[in-house]
């Protein structure tokens, strides 16, 4: 009966205590990991030293000696600007792609997702073919095909394909009509802002009134009417009565010689078109599947229950189905948005000067591999974390409260 002796209060020796062993194992792991990383880091440092490179970020102040043509202005980065400036321009270009891409891809995804559930056979089939083709071929291939096989085969500027708008499609890019601001833009926007606030306040007040009294108060209608009236009257006031320029003027693109006129309309480069179109078409297919699954995830019983209570079709969609569908859709949607952000780095492959493309050039020019890689990765991490954080807040609003 050896066990009899352990009857008294017994605390095991510490080397047999599982908590102690857990700490030991983890510390050992930590030490090995740190050791491994420092060994790799040392190696890298030595290798770089042998190659005559340093680990400092001083090179960022040096002249880049290359220029970037892609950006918000016609020549955003010249040979005299610093490497840091080049990074900045690349980052802005990445942001442009992401911003436009996220908006367009959401629209495409929504439309295609709804189309996949359409009662119209033809629409359903076309949406299905679109989704299958996009999902089952690599994005890189689509991008290259789009760029080399479609956009670069467009005619020259002087023989542009002209779509109504007018929108010019050419090998040198796409020219669209643009809204240009004038001297009166800012005051007008301020007035419109005030109108918007007034409209929203009216809407909410009337809605509360409706909830309290049960009388229909047309809150949304009155609110938006107020807002539109303020916007319209102030527009007329600025443009007609005060003899000044309208708050915005429409600038139509024009061709001057072999190029588009830089001072008219909005001109986007073929590379920008390729990367945005490629990203939007590709990610849109995945979002379409998410939208479809989201709508299908709402049980039929929800429709039936709502219909039995006398809700109209659009009321059911807005009040019952969409809030529930969104709950299912947001987590995968977040993944797709983050994918789009990461995939925007493929712009470099079609020659778009985004963060990754610029970084490759900087790495070649300066030879500073580690620093460049660090900056690039941290930038993308920040972008992704920001997107994830925003989507997380959104997600919190749509989840069910459960016990």
């Amino acid at each position, binding site marked *: 009966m050896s066990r009899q002796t352990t009857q008294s209060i017994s605390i095991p020796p510490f080397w047999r205590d599982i908590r102690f062993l*857990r700490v030991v194992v*983890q*510390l050992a*792991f*930590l030490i090995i*990991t740190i050791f491994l990383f420092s060994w*790799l*880091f040392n*190696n*890298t440092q*030595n*290798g*770089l030293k042998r*190659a005559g490179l340093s680990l400092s970020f001083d090179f960022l102040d040096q002249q880049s000696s290359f220029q970037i043509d892609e950006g918000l202005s016609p020549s955003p980065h010249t040979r005299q600007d610093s490497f840091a400036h080049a990074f900045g321009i690349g980052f802005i270009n990445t942001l442009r792609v992401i911003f436009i891409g996220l908006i367009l891809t959401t629209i495409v995804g929504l439309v295609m997702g709804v189309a996949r559930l359409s*009662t*119209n*056979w*033809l*629409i359903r089939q*076309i949406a299905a073919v679109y989704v*299958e*083709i996009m*999902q*089952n*071929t*690599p*994005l*890189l*291939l*689509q991008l*290259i*095909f789009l760029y*080399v*096989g479609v956009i670069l085969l467009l005619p020259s500027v002087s023989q542009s394909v002209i779509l109504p708008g007018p929108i010019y499609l050419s090998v040198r890019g796409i020219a669209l009509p643009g809204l240009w601001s004038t001297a009166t833009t800012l005051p007008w926007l301020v007035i419109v802002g005030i109108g918007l606030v007034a409209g929203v306040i009216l809407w909410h007040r009337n809605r509360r009134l409706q909830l309290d009294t049960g009388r229909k108060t047309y809150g949304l209608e009155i609110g938006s009417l107020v807002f539109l009236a303020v916007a319209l009257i102030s527009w007329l006031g600025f443009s007609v009565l005060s003899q000044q320029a309208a708050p915005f003027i429409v600038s139509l693109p024009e061709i001057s010689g072999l190029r588009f006129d830089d001072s008219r309309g909005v001109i986007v480069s073929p590379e920008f078109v390729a990367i945005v179109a490629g990203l939007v078409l590709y990610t849109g297919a995945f979002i379409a599947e998410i939208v479809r699954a989201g709508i299908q995830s709402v049980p039929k019983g929800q429709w039936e229950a709502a219909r039995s209570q006398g809700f109209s079709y659009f009321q059911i969609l807005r009040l019952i189905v969409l809030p529930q569908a969104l709950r299912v859709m947001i987590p995968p949607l977040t993944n797709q948005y*983050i994918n789009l952000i*990461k*995939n*925007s*780095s*493929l712009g*470099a*492959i079609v020659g778009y000067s985004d963060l*990754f493309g610029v970084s*490759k050039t900087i*790495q070649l020019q300066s030879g500073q*591999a*580690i620093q460049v*890689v660090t900056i*690039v*990765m941290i930038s*993308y*991490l920040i972008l*992704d*974390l920001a997107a994830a954080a925003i989507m997380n807040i959104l997600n919190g609003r749509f989840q069910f409260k459960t016990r």
Partner: protein
Amino acid sequence: MPTSTSTTTPTAVPVQRPIAAAGPIHWLRNNLFRSWLDTLLTIFVGIVAVSLISRFFQWITSEAQWTVITSNFRVLMQGLYPIDQGWRLVVAVIVIVALAGISWGIWGHMFTSTTIMLVVGTFSVLIVSILGPTISDSTDLARYFRGEIVPLLEILRVPILILVLCLLLGYAIGQIAIVLAPHGAQRGAIIGWLLSIPVVFLLVRGLAPDTPGLPLVPTSIWGGLLLTFMMAFVAIVSCFPLGILLALGRSPGGTSPRQAPLPAFWFINFHQWYVVGTRWWRNLGPYPIFKLFCALYIEFFRGVPLITVFFTANLLVPFALGSTELDSVVRAMIALTLFEAAYIAEIVRGGLQALPPGQLEAAKALGLSPLHATLFITMPQALRTVIPALVGQFITMFKDTSLVAVVGLLDLLGIAQGVLAQQQFAGRQREMYVFVALVFFIFSFGMSRAAQQLERSGSGRLQFER
């Protein structure tokens, strides 16, 4: 029959269903012309679709010049892999396709229509490529057909024949095996897949430069579809265990379900920082360092683009390991593995979290050690529930291999671009890219259909309660 309740007697003449409720007209009205808006949409979309499709057919039947494929077929498929060693690739492909077919026969179901499509497709390719050269050049179409399409089919017919035959034969074997010995067949197929990994790798790579029969073919000269496949193959096989380890490391959480809510503006009080800090650390569970490490690893790799990882691996690995012995193919394989492991980890973790906690408790209560509980109870169930997501990730991985072009490797897409850069094939981008897209499409579409079947057949789902 009580007569008190029924006042009408059933009519002797069966009521005729309105004719419009069935038949093609009904179908058309229901599916294409429901409302005037629907009709408008159908007509508009129909016109656009028809014009696009007819344009594509016109291109296929009179403009496309497939010599860019036919004259570069071998290099597209195997890169610079020695021609006299090509049989090794053929054997590897046969092994894998046959295994895929057998697995299909065991776990899936081939629809008759699929079989018919496969057989008819193969036969038509065979017949056209054999009879094609005998067509007279009487019309433009016939001349074009003989000059451009028949050579393409001629070069494709043997690979297609081998693929389809192996697939169908494998399927038949699988179907027979599942009837004869259900458990043995499943186990055999799994063992077959596990064995195929080293077999295929050794077959393709060889042992040593002077091994008789199997001389070494260094990874540095792999290229084309071969490289694409081997990249995906190696990455799938090696990221899987790594991903499972990461998922396990990140999984266990702390147990503190009820906690007093924090006071408002807790962050002004230093003591509250301490409270929040310890609470956070406790919530990390019994292995906080493992958990933090795995979480950091996963979030890092899921937060950066794959091409930056390829780029980094290519730039820094030679420095970090103090030598340049690793050729760039191996570097890319390592990068892809490290990257995809993070995604696999999150999928597997999702499966683990979906398990009812009672499963692990029951395993513990029986005295199973943590290793045995994971091996026999939690992991098998978690993996089953995430099979569809895993296959989806494998498809992504397969497509992602095309990004190795960034570091100058010549995978299928890389070779295609290399070919297009030659003067004689300038302007043949569309043909080339359509071909490459088709190759990618066939394989990823096949995989995704397989995943759907697995999902539907219910082998991914488990009943916890009746």
